[in-house]
C-alpha cells in the first residue's frame, strides 16, 4: 500500500491533473468502444440462455475485470506516450489500481449472484 501511495505521489509530481485525467478519459473512451458491444453480446446471450444465468454472470464478472484491466493498460499507455522519458513504474501502479477495482467488481458480481438475481426472479 505504501508503494502504491508513493507511486501515485510520483505521478502527481510528474504529471499535471489535467494530463492524468486526459489519459484516463482517453483510455475510458477507447474501452467504452469495446465495452458496449461486449456487454450487449453478454446481455443478449443471457436473454436467450437464461437457464445458465449464474454461469453467464460469472463470465460477465470476468469480462468487466478484463475491461477494467484494459482501461488501466490504456491509461498507462497514454501517460507513457505523453512523457516517454518518465521513470515511473506505471505497470506496477496500474496493476495495483486495477486489482483494487477488480475486487470491487467481484464483490458486486457476488451480490448479484446471491442477492439481487434471486430477488429479481419473482
Amino acid at each position, binding site marked *: 500500500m505504501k508503494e502504491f501511495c508513493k507511486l501515485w505521489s510520483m505521478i502527481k509530481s510528474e504529471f499535471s491533473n489535467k494530463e492524468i485525467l*486526459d*489519459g484516463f*478519459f*482517453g*483510455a475510458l*473512451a*477507447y474501452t467504452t*468502444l469495446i465495452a*458496449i*458491444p461486449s456487454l*450487449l*453480446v453478454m446481455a*443478449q*446471450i443471457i*436473454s*436467450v*440462455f*437464461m*437457464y445458465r*444465468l449464474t454461469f453467464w454472470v460469472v463470465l460477465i464478472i470476468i469480462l468487466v475485470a478484463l475491461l477494467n484491466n484494459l482501461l488501466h493498460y*490504456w491509461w498507462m*499507455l*497514454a501517460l507513457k*506516450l*505523453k512523457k516517454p522519458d518518465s521513470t515511473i513504474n506505471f505497470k506496477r501502479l496500474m496493476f495495483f489500481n486495477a486489482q483494487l477495482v477488480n475486487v470491487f467488481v467481484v464483490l458486486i458480481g457476488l451480490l448479484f449472484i446471491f442477492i439481487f438475481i*434471486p430477488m*429479481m*426472479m*419473482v
Partner: protein
Amino acid sequence: MNELTKKFGPYLKVLIIPYLFFMFILIYQIDYFVHAPGGISEVDSLIHVEYNEDKEIEGSISSTFIMSINRPTFFQFLISEFSNYTYSNILTGSNANYSNSEIAKISYLDKATSVNAAIIVAYLEAQKNNNEIEIDYDIVTMVYGKAQYLSHYDDIDFGDEFLYLIGDGGVEVSELSEIAAYTQNENSYEFHFRNSFEEYSKIIEKNSETGLFGITLKKYYLVNQEETYPRFTERQSNIGGPSGGLLQTLAVYNMLISEDITRGLKIAGTGTINYDGTVGYIGGVEQKITTAYLNGVDVFFIPFLDENYYYDNYLEALRACEKFGIDPTGWLVPVSSFQDALDYLEGRS
C-alpha cells in the same frame, strides 16, 4: 486522448466498418419471436399469506417461466439457432401489431389477474374446511386488447377498467354481453373508463371496414383485500404471463391449510387457472419442459384437457420429452384442474 488516437488511428479506420456492422446486428430488431428456457420461481417469494406462519413447509412450489423475446435483435435470433431448446418463428397475430412495451403490459396484466384468480380459487377451496377463511372479490371489465384502428388508441390503456358506455336511446350499458345489442344505430359511442388516476370518457368510432370498435374487453375477478381473511401481500413481479396460475393456487392453498402438501417435494408446473378451478392451456411447452428438467424438479404439473387435440399441452410435453431424450416417467403429471393436482399430491403421501 490525442496520443492514443494517434497510436490507434490506423486500426480505427480499418475496423470502423466491421464495428458498425456488428453494432447493427446487436441493435436492429426483427419481426420474429424467440422462446427459450427460463427458470423456476418459488411462489412464496411472490405471494405471502399472513396465516400459519410458523408452519414448516419442507418442499417448494414454483411456477415455471420461459424467456419470450419478441422482436429479437439479429444477434439474439442467430444465437438462438445454435440451441436445440429454443424455438423461433415470425411474429404473428395480435402480438405483431403491438410494440414490445405493449406486449409487456398485457403480460403483466395477465400475471396480476392470474394471481387474483389463484387467491380466489385457493381461498374458496380452503374455506370448505376452515370457516375462518373469508374471500370477497369484485368483477371488473378491463381493456385487454386494442386494434390499430381504435379511436384514441394512445389514451386508452391496457388494464383500464371499462365502466359503461352510453348506448342507443341513452342507456348506460356496463354488461359486456349487452354492448352489441345497444350499439346498433350509431357509428360512435361514448365509452367511460377508469385508470389508476381518474375516470375518463372517450367517443369511440366503429371501423368502417370491420364495423367494430377495435377494443377487446375482458371480465376479471379482483380480490377485495379489505373483506378477505387472512390478509395476503403480493410482491411486484418481474415475470409476466398467466401460466403460473395453477402453481400459485397450490402454493396459496398450502399456506392456508395446516398440513404440508409439498411433502418435501420440489414441485413445479404450468397452466393457467380459471375461476372454477379448471386449468387452461399455455404456450412454450417445449421450453418449459426443458426448464423443469434442467432444474431437477420432482413433480411437474401440465394441463391435459383433450387427448384428441394435437396441441394439447400434455401431448406436446410428451413429444418434447421424446425430442430431447427426457424420461417423463414419475415427474410429468397431467392435470385438468386444481383438484387433480391436489389429489395427485395426496396420493404421493
